[in-house]
């Protein structure tokens, strides 16, 4: 009886859709691309796939931790913060490397700014408080100079998407913004009229590319199946097509070592925040 029930459960799990969480990186607005990618995954996995999009990184990582999602494409910063609840599934290859940078962008009219520290008293745009390139790195730079955004900038705000940071800076709503370098480069490729109104004032060192993760409780079979599909994308035409549209070269299994720097920055910023007067 018991085994029968377990079997039935297993069969259900086989039929149930794979729930795949997406953060508002730049994919947010690309319904066509997502539809094609989902169809690809479904055909390769032989299972229905359901993409789950949420407005913030936080919601996606929360859902992962509460087993509401099987997989998700998140950022290195939530990955290191919630490491215990997650398994590293794959890391995208960008320009051949599983690496990317954070960009400090300013309006194109600003030709002098070289560093975030030049923007004291200005209005600044972050993408998401759980983003490495859109928040953590900028915070880390300020913390190194013993500054915190609230005191350093006259005003800072979140746009909850990298693309919108570019828009805010392009409109000069903010005099500076911290953005995912991969997103900016991809936008430069697909929407140059937007990026041309901004200027990259500073580039961070390289960090591990925002990884694809699985909840810790996902079965080996499911994990392996998904891993196999993703890693194989670069080697079939259809997958290559999708990768082109994603402006990526492929996926690699990756390792925790890629995210060590992010982990270090997180600790530094946390310490700085703790030291800050309430």
């Amino acid at each position, binding site marked *: 009886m018991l085994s029968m029930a377990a079997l039935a459960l297993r069969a259900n799990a086989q039929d149930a859709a794979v729930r795949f969480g997406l953060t508002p990186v730049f994919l947010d607005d690309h319904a066509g691309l997502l539809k094609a990618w989902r169809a690809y995954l479904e055909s390769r996995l032989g299972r229905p796939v359901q993409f789950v999009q949420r407005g913030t990184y936080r919601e996606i990582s929360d859902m992962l931790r509460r087993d509401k999602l099987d997989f998700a494409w998140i950022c290195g910063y939530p990955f290191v913060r919630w490491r215990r609840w997650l398994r590293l599934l794959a890391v995208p290859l960008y320009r051949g490397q599983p690496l990317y940078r954070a960009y400090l962008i300013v309006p194109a009219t600003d030709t002098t700014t070289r560093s975030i520290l030049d923007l004291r008293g200005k*209005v600044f*745009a972050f993408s998401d408080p759980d983003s490495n390139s859109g928040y953590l790195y900028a915070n880390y730079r300020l913390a190194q100079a013993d500054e915190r955004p609230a005191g350093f900038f*006259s*005003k800072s*705000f*979140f*746009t*909850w998407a990298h693309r*919108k940071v570019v828009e*805010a800076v392009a*409109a*000069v*709503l*903010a005099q500076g913004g911290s953005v995912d370098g991969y997103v900016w480069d991809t936008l430069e490729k697909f929407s140059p009229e937007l990026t041309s109104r901004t200027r990259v004032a500073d580039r961070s060192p390289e960090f591990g590319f925002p990884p694809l993760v699985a909840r810790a409780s996902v079965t080996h079979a499911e994990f392996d199946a998904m891993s196999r599909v993703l890693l194989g994308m670069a080697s079939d035409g259809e997958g290559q097509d999708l990768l082109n549209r994603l402006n990526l070269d492929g996926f690699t299994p990756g390792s925790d070592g890629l995210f060590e720097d992010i982990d270090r920055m997180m600790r530094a910023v946390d310490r700085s925040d703790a030291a800050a007067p309430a």
Partner: protein
Amino acid sequence: MLPRLRDLSLRYKIPLRGSLLVLVTAAAVTLSLMFREYDQLRDDLIASSASMGRVLAKTLVTPLVHDDVWRAFEIINSPFHASGHELAPQTAEIVTVLDSRGMVYVSTQPTQYPILADPMRTNRDFSELQHAIDHYREFEPTVVEPLRSDKLYVVAPIVSDGVQLGSLVIGYSKSAFAPRFYAIAKRAGVVTLFVIAVLLPASWYWGQRFARPLMNLARSMEQVSTRIPAEAEVRVEESRDEMGQVGAAYKAMLQELREKELLKREIVVSERLAAVGRLSAGIAHEINNPLGGMLNAINTFKHHGSDDPVTVKTLSLLERGLLQIRDTVAALLVEARIESHPLTRQDIEDTRTLVLADANGKSVRFEWENDVVGALQIPSTLVRQILINLMLNAVDAAGANGVASGHVYHDSRDLHIVVANNGTHIPPERMEYLFEPFSSHRAGGHGLGLWVTYQVIRQLSGDVAVASEPDHTSFHVTLPLETQPA
């Protein structure tokens, strides 16, 4: 040099004024239509933007509570992106959210209105807007139209739980009305042009018609200084309006002038005749005295007798000459008091008999009418003298196969003698000297007949009128009758 406007002929001035009136009226109507349309546009805009303001302000509550600048930015930009937004028939030029201190929270034009900046620095209009913000009535959107600004603003409070978090300012450029406004203006312009095209020729025509009688009058008046135009030459409006009244008054004035002129001439003529009369009477008197003496002397001499044939012949020659002088002088001198019986019908008939012989001799048809009955208190000898002179002249002038006529009648006051004829007439230039002595223009005439006639008429306190034109001459003598003693 161009003629001055006020010197222009009425022929142009009236139509020009009419045209001006048409143009001014058309312009006024067009303008008022356009202003009405402008108001309509403005009301539409205010209504729609107030409702848009209300909606936007409500949506902005959450972002303001959460201090979500980007969300607020996206919300205020939404009317610009949603092109078919039914709430925004006119696209707003700027939407700005002010925080509770009146500083910029977020604006659709961040370069001009940076976050946290004082909007008054960029745009003085905001000082008036701030006044409206400080005095919201029941948290309802307010329309503000700052003086000396080309913008119109709708200000809406952003309120949560009765607390004002900030304000929404939607600015419209009034020049955004321009395209619609111009479209309306163009339509109005076309209609106006059409109306003008119809009205201008009409006003031109009516103006001309109105001016014409005035022009006729003016032209006629110009002539008056040189000569008085004849009745037939004067063309004036025959109507009872002011134009007609002026025309009638002008005609009456001309008639008066003509009469005055006539009177003046008559006075001149009669004064001259009087002067000539006095002169000839004086001369006649001076001649008559020695003449009487001379004739008496010759008479006496003849009684005493002398047989010298040369003397007798000389004396009789002298006597004949002197007698002729006396006759002539007698003719000049009209006898003042001649004993005479009252005039009867028969006296007049007698003159007819006398003249008829003459007329028959000259093959002139003589027409006669005698309306006198009974005896009239007027010296018959003098009347007969007048009649004979006038009728002989008429017969003479009528000539062979001509017609002459005589008509004598009377009323209670006057006796009238009218003698007329055809044939040779008296030319106007001779009219003035007609009654002067020795002014004969007739072979065998002495030129004394009318002179005597005139003197007699004057003596009887009467009057004579002459009218002469080719083929018709008439003399009309009016003699007052002595009032019969009761």
